[in-house]
């Protein structure tokens, strides 16, 4: 995107890209809202297959912690880009992407483990709703990691100066949103399991 747009006058004073991104996040709330509602509606209605007992809360607490720490790294990355600190921008962008990938690794392990335990997409309502809900979230994390890696490459190309901090801010908005969604999913699916 061009920097000319940054200087573009807007009615509210808020950059149009930021407003668009907030609107997009609002739209995403309804997407995850529908997925989570479906999970709740179908809770405890499975007629076969493993139940929520197979959820490993200690393990997922660790992966949740990893994801939350990535949000901290994201904040530090934005601060570094804004003050024009190329080295620490790269360190924190890489850390965020790495922690995000770590979360995905936990999820991949969890999914494989569940399939071995006999819980697949097709097994039961629990299987269908669990995998689709957490899979959708994982997909969002994956897109976020790609975005962060793109920013990292831009930084190495010396194209991510303080004038481009909005790009990092937008990625940060997305990243934090995906984190917040996970907090809801972790609470609903893991902590309040029936």
């Amino acid at each position, binding site marked *: *995107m*061009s920097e*000319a*747009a940054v200087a*573009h006058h*807007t*009615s*509210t004073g*808020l950059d*149009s890209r930021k*407003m*668009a991104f907030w*609107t*997009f996040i*609002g*739209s*995403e709330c*309804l*997407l995850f*809202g*529908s*997925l989570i509602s*479906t999970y709740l*509606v*179908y809770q405890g*209605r*499975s*007629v*076969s297959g493993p139940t929520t007992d197979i959820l490993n809360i200690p393990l997922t607490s660790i992966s949740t912690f990893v994801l939350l720490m990535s949000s901290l790294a994201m904040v530090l990355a934005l601060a570094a880009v804004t003050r024009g600190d190329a080295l620490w921008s790269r360190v924190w962008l890489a850390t965020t992407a790495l922690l995000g990938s770590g979360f995905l690794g936990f999820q991949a392990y969890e999914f494989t483990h569940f399939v071995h335990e006999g819980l697949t*997409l*097709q097994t*039961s*309502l629990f*299987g*269908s*709703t669990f995998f*689709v809900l957490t899979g959708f979230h994982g997909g969002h994390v994956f897109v976020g990691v790609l975005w962060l890696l*793109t920013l990292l490459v831009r930084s190495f190309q010396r194209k991510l100066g303080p004038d481009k901090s909005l790009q990092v801010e937008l990625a940060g908005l997305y990243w934090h949103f995906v984190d917040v969604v996970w907090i809801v999913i972790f609470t609903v699916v893991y902590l309040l399991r029936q």
Partner: protein
Amino acid sequence: MATAALTVDAPGFGSRVWSWITTTDHKRIGILYGVTAFVFFLLGGLEALVIRAQLAQSSADLVSADFYNQLFTMHGTTMVFLAIMPLSAAFFNYIVPLQIGARDVAFPRLNAFSYWVFLLGGLLMNASFFFGAAPNGGWFGYANLTSTQYSPGLNIDFWVLGLQILGVASIAAGINFLVTIINLRAPGMRMMRLPVFTWMTLVTQFIVVTAFPVITVALVFLMFDRTFGTTFYSVAAGGDVLLWQHLFWLFGHPEVYILILPAMGMVSEVIPTFSRKPLFGYAVIVYSGLLIAILGWGVWAHHMFAVGMGPVADAVFSSTTMLIAIPTGVKIFNWLATMWGGKLSLKTPMLFSLGFIAMFVVGGLSGVMHSSAAADLQQTDSYFVVAHIHYVLYGGAIQGIFSGIYYWWPKMTGWMLNERLGKTHFWLSFIGLNLAFFPMHFIGLLGMPRRIYTYDAVLGVDAMNFMSTVGAFIIGLSTIVFVVNVWYSRRERIEAGMDPWGAATLEWSIPSPPPNYNFTAIPEVVSRLPQWSDTEMKAIPTEPEGEIHMPGGSYWPAVSAVGILVLAVGALLESLAFALGGAVVLVVGIYAWAFEPFEM
């Protein structure tokens, strides 16, 4: 078409086509939306005529039962998603930036992307006809009729993928227009000075970005059920088929307002202009539009009274449905009060607006009848409901849109449409629609169910069905008159000038059609009706002071849209190679789009 004046760098046919593919000008994208949607409108109309021909007499066998299912499914889906929504989008695109005093939308390339995704989604859905596998589960595709057990063919897959693609287009456009209207207003264009059409666009886009994710999730569940064997709508696994109905109507009822609010906005522009009076109760019209959007989220289950939700749910949804009639009714009185004591000029746009009010009241009243759960049990799934939706969507939305077409045509092309042909169009369409849809009330109450390909003479509805068919063909004829009008008026070419109707809003203060930069200088707005105001707006210069830099074209939005199409074809054929290929094209398209130099 008439936009040749806009294509400055397009001498040959090839480069002309290329300039349309790469355009990011909101006006040209508006024309693309309008032409495409009108073609889909004709296609959906053709499907309706075949349906009516089949129903003209009892025990007819013009089409098979299976093809009839495909016809009514595609008629409904086409008219809702490929005709009415994009016809409104044509006006969002063309008119809204002009009304708020902007040079373009906030994200011109995202706007182009929306159009291409919409076009390809519509083509994909209709391509199903060539495989004899058009969607056949009804436009609301109830589970578990749509499961692989009961619908093993590709029909439902075409429908699911087509709707998901169209959802992407709608959400992208929704975000774009929300930001445009809130953020790109000219100095002095406060929110409560926005023209009502722009206000209704804003409200509509709010509904779009909130309602479409819900149907996306419903469709994802259905797709996973069909492709990967999940159990979302499987009763055997303990699932509930009503999950689909709840998710679908949670989207579906707000969708009704997505269809009607733009038309209400158009009528709110036309009626003051042809009554020579400012709109009565501007603020009330705006707030009732907002109220409709909010209440529209709390009425969905009135589509489901017959499924047995229990007395509490039935009572709640009955009450909210009755409640939403209030802001709707308020608008009707506002329009009537605007006309009261005005100097009425019954030009074609005004006739369609008057037709809109009258017919929308008829459709609205039968809608309020449905709000009573007890009465609804008699009416549900009968032709009474078909009568209701057609009064609301043809008598309402389509007449409102035609009002907008006749009103803004001079602005968009620079020449006038013929009044005599316009009035012929209106009266034929008005008589046709009443002849086609009014008998359906009685046909329904006498017990004829909807979506049945034929009926028995014993039912005693032969004569009324025949009347209805005659009415449908008169509507078809009226649409031909419109096409003739366009062709004839284009040859006659009566210059429109800047403001042929003496209208009040900002789009009438610039030449018709507007230059690609719209305004030579961004206007400073001092009142709600700048063209009628006593406090003169600073005149907009006829020539720009310096060179005005407008965004150049880009083909990456179209490339990204093609990526989505290929991805969907991969899903349809269950071919991993296709799907991966599509994903690669999409990713390359998005990256090239993000990093190409693009000034705005």
